[in-house]
């Protein structure tokens, strides 16, 4: 969809912004906190603009451009310093990096601001790997995990590649491939509400494929997919559950087992 893999990466910065995303804010704040811990451990100061809300993606994908623009505009100027903006979600990062410039294409001033912001937006795993250049030290017991990458993260941000490389730094972690790995989990934002039968069928197929690998857990760098799959698994009565990548990375590498 969008070009990936040829991005120029800056030197490791002293400070970054965190854009936490609305789903993490309300449903998985621990994943956001773990992202902060991972960044701070690299000696990076994390700033969390208190006025941030949502990237605007729900309205965008539902066909409400006016509301999308209003919400996107209210995020656009929350990051005044030239620091990187770290997003622990590939699809929200993709929205800010690839769709903001299209949303503001008709206003030269806003377009310039959107483009400048887009240049500084990094999905968390991409930033850890390519900018912070982390060297993770595995503290955990041997584990087999599966990986589900959100479609926007995969196609707009190349997140599946970054996450695999990061996990490759952990000798105790084996990443199992699952059947139809690149296929959508059926979340799709409001799609999951509008077409529940189709969405649930997709989610069921995905959780079955993940479990067939014999992995102990699955990881996702997107809270939306993770919630979709975990709540599907709970409804099915399956004990299998997934974890946000940030939390898994922190727990695997913190010397106290991630209890902080």
């Amino acid at each position, binding site marked *: 969809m969008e070009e990936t893999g040829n991005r120029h990466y800056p030197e490791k910065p002293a400070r970054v912004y965190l854009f936490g995303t609305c789903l993490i804010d309300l449903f998985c704040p621990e994943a956001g906190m773990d992202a902060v811990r991972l960044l701070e451990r690299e000696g990076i100061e994390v700033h969390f603009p208190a006025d941030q809300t949502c990237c605007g993606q729900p309205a965008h*994908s539902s066909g409400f451009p006016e509301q999308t623009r209003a919400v996107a505009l209210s995020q656009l100027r929350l990051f005044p310093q030239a620091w990187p903006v770290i997003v622990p979600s590939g699809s929200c990062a993709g929205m800010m990096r690839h769709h903001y410039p299209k949303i503001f294409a008709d206003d030269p001033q806003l377009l310039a601001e959107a483009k400048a912001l887009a240049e500084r937006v990094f999905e968390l795993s991409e930033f850890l790997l390519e900018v912070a250049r982390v060297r993770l030290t595995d503290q955990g017991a041997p584990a087999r995990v599966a990986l589900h990458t959100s479609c926007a993260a995969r196609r707009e941000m190349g997140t599946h590649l970054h996450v695999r490389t990061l996990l490759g730094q952990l000798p105790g972690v084996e990443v199992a491939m699952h059947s139809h790995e690149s296929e959508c989990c059926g979340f799709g934002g409001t799609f999951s*509400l509008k077409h529940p039968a189709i969405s649930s069928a*997709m989610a069921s197929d995905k959780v079955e494929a993940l479990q067939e690998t014999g992995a102990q857990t699955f990881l996702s760098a997107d809270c939306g997919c993770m919630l979709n799959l975990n709540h599907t698994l709970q409804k099915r009565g399956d004990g299998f559950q997934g974890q946000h990548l940030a939390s898994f990375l922190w727990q695997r590498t913190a010397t106290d087992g991630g209890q902080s």
Partner: protein
Amino acid sequence: MNAQQLQFVPASEFKQRAAVAVSDAHLRSSFRGAMDFLIGKRAAQFPDPVLLERQRGLAEHIRKYSLARLPELLEQLERKLTENGVHVHWAENPEQANRIIIDIARSHSTKLMVKGKSMVSEEVELNHAMADAGIEALESDMGEYIVQLDGEKPSHIIMPAIHKTKQEIARLFAAKVPGVSYTESVDELIGIGRAVLREKFMTAEVGLSGVNFAVAETGTLCLVENEGNGRMCTTVPDVHIAITGIEKVVEKLEHVPPLLGLLTRSATGQAITTYFNMISGPRKPGEKDGPREMHLVLVDNGRSQAYADEQLRSTLQCIRCGACMNHCPVYTRIGGHAYGTTYPGPIGAIISPHLLGLAATHVLPTASSLCGACGEVCPVRIPIPDLLVRLRGEAQHDARPGHAPLLGQGAAKSGLVDAVWSGWAAMYTRPALYRAFGWLATRFRALTPPLQSGWTVGRTPLKPAKRTLHERMAARRVR
């Protein structure tokens, strides 16, 4: 108008059909198997991603270039075909297209017309119109023949009978083809179809075909096929009628090979099909075969509406390979019939609103998780997800200033939904209000509703965390 009303797709009915389809284990596994097979075959044809991107770029460019010059290319095509002895007809809608074809058939006292595969003829529901006119229209593509024999519509634009098992086909042939007994042997089944069709090719007065590419410079109609039935339809009967959409024209012969190479590879994973026909006119004096009379019917049927809009115009880049369906997780779950339109899947969701109007089709663009698989494999790089989003918007709003309204513009407008999104935007543009909502939702998390619309159909309810990330980060700042 009756025939077109068959293609009205009420949201409730689509959802009901989709729900039935996803709980049909047989349909699910057969579509999954067939799509996996096609995905694998396609992937094997494109081992080098860099080369593929270069090829897609070229194909996209050829299609964009052709569309940019569409009016003059169509005039050039008409001029050239007329010089070559082909009668060219223009049809604005299905009624006109059917009327033209029926009139030609009647002028030759036609009792039987054999048809090669043509999605445009499906789109205008030609077979119904021919039946009403008392003329038999017989499908000769094996998949189309099977579907027609069973009174069904195609479920895929390339593989029309992909939803059927060989056992179903065996039962169908035994019941409907005189003198045939039940056999599950695929070779025997094909042999039965071939025997029926051979005789029909020899007796039909008219042969009909579609067109994959129409070359303006030479007046050449290109036809891609695997079974040889297309060649039979276009050479054996005395009259050949070709029917196609106005968007299929390219300027030069040299524009065909890049598109052809991507079409067959993307569609069936073939480097080239068994047959590739290039038809430039009827039999000339002294020639021993070929039709004595030839016609081309160019159909608009809503394409001009897509053409008029800069973004929506890219819909017309499509070369009908079907790769977007094969890779679509929604199509794979529900099959082609659930969509209710001639063109199912992602391409159907972006073209049907122009053919049938948004009033009839607005649910189709919503039936996508926007995963992007369709756009990723499209050989001519149609930005399908962007177009789905655009059509979702057009269905729910009046036309934007400076834009002509689409057919059925605003058909899905809802005061309630508008209010929900306006309320959403009001909260998400007011940080203090947003934080207050988060505070309340976490403090009263025990009161989270247990039924959350479509979400809880297949999932347990969502429940807010004990504290929002905002609160936790604020507490850190103070500390």
